[in-house]
């Protein structure tokens, strides 16, 4: 099948969704900039022009509220942020308005709003430009949270987000944009709440989120060399979360390792572990292991970035601990 880069898949999804549905428009800081947002919005700008793809002032909070208002009025705004850290400026509009308006008015109005934001990493971007805040959004009822890890999922999930009638937060890891993979040319819609088995295996289940999926696949490769067959599962969406798939797999392998791009405590790995512990009572052969960020802000120095970010090596180590029971 045709190969596309992650960034190209997002660009294609955006343009196909806009072509199918004139209510979809794109706004955000730098969305019309050739260098902006890793080139994921420029294509739409060139195809649909500045009336449907427009640059904005640095007023993230009001822009989010604008998105909610435009959504209530029958449009589907795609609001784009260069970094998910900036979403912290918009938490009131996201959690108090976007997530709740439909509920507060008894379903009379809906808020079809998609918000894309990038998880930064590396090159000393440091504490305020490299956070991975999915747990914060996944905690809020009324929101959907998607974290595509492959080009195919990036397109399929974004298409679904842009056709859904509620607010969706799409978090994209910076290190995924240049990765390639097969992507169907037609429009297709990857359902929310359905994870995927990225690599089948019988000995241990590794649930990995976003960029950690790639690390998990590397880890699985290395483990295979030692005769250990790891099954890698990508939940793809965190809210809703496909616990059934995770639990089926872990029930079979008896071992579960969870790898997240965010902080460990009160993070995504905690919810997955908690659900598995609840539902897999008596079925696990070893304690669940979590691979996630240590409890500190992102350091600037490259010398500290290395020990800060866990990866395939740490996943392999966690799997081995798990195999030792």
């Amino acid at each position, binding site marked *: 099948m045709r190969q596309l880069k992650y960034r190209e898949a997002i660009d294609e999804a955006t343009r196909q969704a806009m072509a199918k549905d004139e209510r979809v428009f794109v706004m955000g800081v730098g969305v019309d900039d050739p260098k902006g947002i890793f080139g994921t919005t420029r294509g739409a700008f060139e195809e649909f022009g500045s*009336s*449907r793809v427009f640059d904005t002032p640095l007023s993230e909070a009001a*822009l989010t*509220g*604008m998105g*909610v*208002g435009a959504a209530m009025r029958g*449009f589907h705004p795609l609001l784009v942020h260069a970094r998910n850290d900036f979403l912290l400026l918009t938490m009131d509009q996201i959690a108090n308005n976007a997530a709740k308006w*439909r509920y507060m008015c008894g379903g009379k*109005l809906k808020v079809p709003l998609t918000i894309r934001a990038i998880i930064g990493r590396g090159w000393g971007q440091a504490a305020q430009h490299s956070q991975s805040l999915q747990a914060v959004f996944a905690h809020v009822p009324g929101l959907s949270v998607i974290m595509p890890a492959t080009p195919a999922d990036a397109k399929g999930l974004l298409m679904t987000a842009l056709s859904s009638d509620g607010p969706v937060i799409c978090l994209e890891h910076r290190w995924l944009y240049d990765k390639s993979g097969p992507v169907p040319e037609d429009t297709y819609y990857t359902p929310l709440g359905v994870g995927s088995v990225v690599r089948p295996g019988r000995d241990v289940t590794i649930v990995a989120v976003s960029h950690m999926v790639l690390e998990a696949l590397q880890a699985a490769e290395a483990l295979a060399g030692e005769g250990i067959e790891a099954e890698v599962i990508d939940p793809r969406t965190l809210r809703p979360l496909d616990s059934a798939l995770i639990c089926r797999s872990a029930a079979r392998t008896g071992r579960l390792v969870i790898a997240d791009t965010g902080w460990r405590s009160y993070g995504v790995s905690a919810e997955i572990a908690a659900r598995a512990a609840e539902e897999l009572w008596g079925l696990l052969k070893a304690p669940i292991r979590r691979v996630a960020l240590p409890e500190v802000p992102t350091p600037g120095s490259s010398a500290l970035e290395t020990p800060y970010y866990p990866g395939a090596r740490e996943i392999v180590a966690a799997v081995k601990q798990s195999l030792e029971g």
Partner: protein
Amino acid sequence: MRRAAVKGGRAGSRTARRGPGRGKADAGLRGLAPALLVDLYVTMRRIRRAEETIAALYPEQEIRCPTHLSIGQEAGATGVCLALRPTDTAVSTHRCHAHYIAKGGDLRGMFAELYGRATGCCGGKGGSMHLTAPEVGMLGASAIVAGSVPLAVGTALAARMAGADEVAVAFFGDAAMEQGVTHESLALAALRRLPVLFVCENNLYATNTPLRTRQAGRDMAARAASHWLPGVIVDGNDVVAVYRVAKAAVERARRGGGPTLIEVKTYRFREHVGPNYDIDLGYRTQVELDRWMAREPVGGLARRLERAGVLPAARRVALDTQVEAEVADAVAFAKASPFPEPAALFADVE
């Protein structure tokens, strides 16, 4: 910043008394259709009586939600909303009863909502601070101060993209001018020349805190300047003055002339939240309250229209009776309505 009328802006002061003395013709009413003037009165009366009824019933503890009454402030919501079409939209705040009613929201739906019933305008899920009636353009309210302001900018943007000549109104209080998102919204609307009316009902207090301890200046309209949109001050207890200012801003917005910030100078009679008077709290003086009550907008318009021969006493009494019946019916409807089923808890989420 412009003052809508000589008497505008110094609301509460001597110069603000509306209408002429006996005999003289009332220039303020010139050119306005009697039907409109009567509608302004009936709408204000409906708001007033609905809220006085809430206040009267509140002690029964069947209205189990915080209620922020607009008694004394009816002219702002009424003057602005009657300058709108049903297809024009409005968003509001914790103090949203008046906006909901003035925009044409159904009284039964409002009372049922306050009573937490399934028949409420929000199915009982929102309560007093989130009244919604999309069928008449009332898109709801946020209980977070200034939270709904940018929504109006978004509906205006959407309306333009849809090629509709709708106008979007954001109602908010003086304290909302202290929230950054309000300033971002004013600037965004000005930048894109969007058809938005930013209506700041300045009632001089946020909860029990006077404006002077919260802001360095007194006029909210002054704050429009730095975002490059016009700001207008109007006597918020003169519904006719409010209507004229709103009408002009609406027409300007519809023509593509961009947004306007309208400061409606007015005053709240009852406590910030709840049915009672609160002079005992000591954050405002009886003198101040009395001065504003002397300029109470509903009775004020009634006398004025009678003087001008637009609405004779007899006809007014008939209309008042009609309003009483509407309100009584809405209360009865609410009380007779069922509560939502527990299953409703899980509906309308994602």
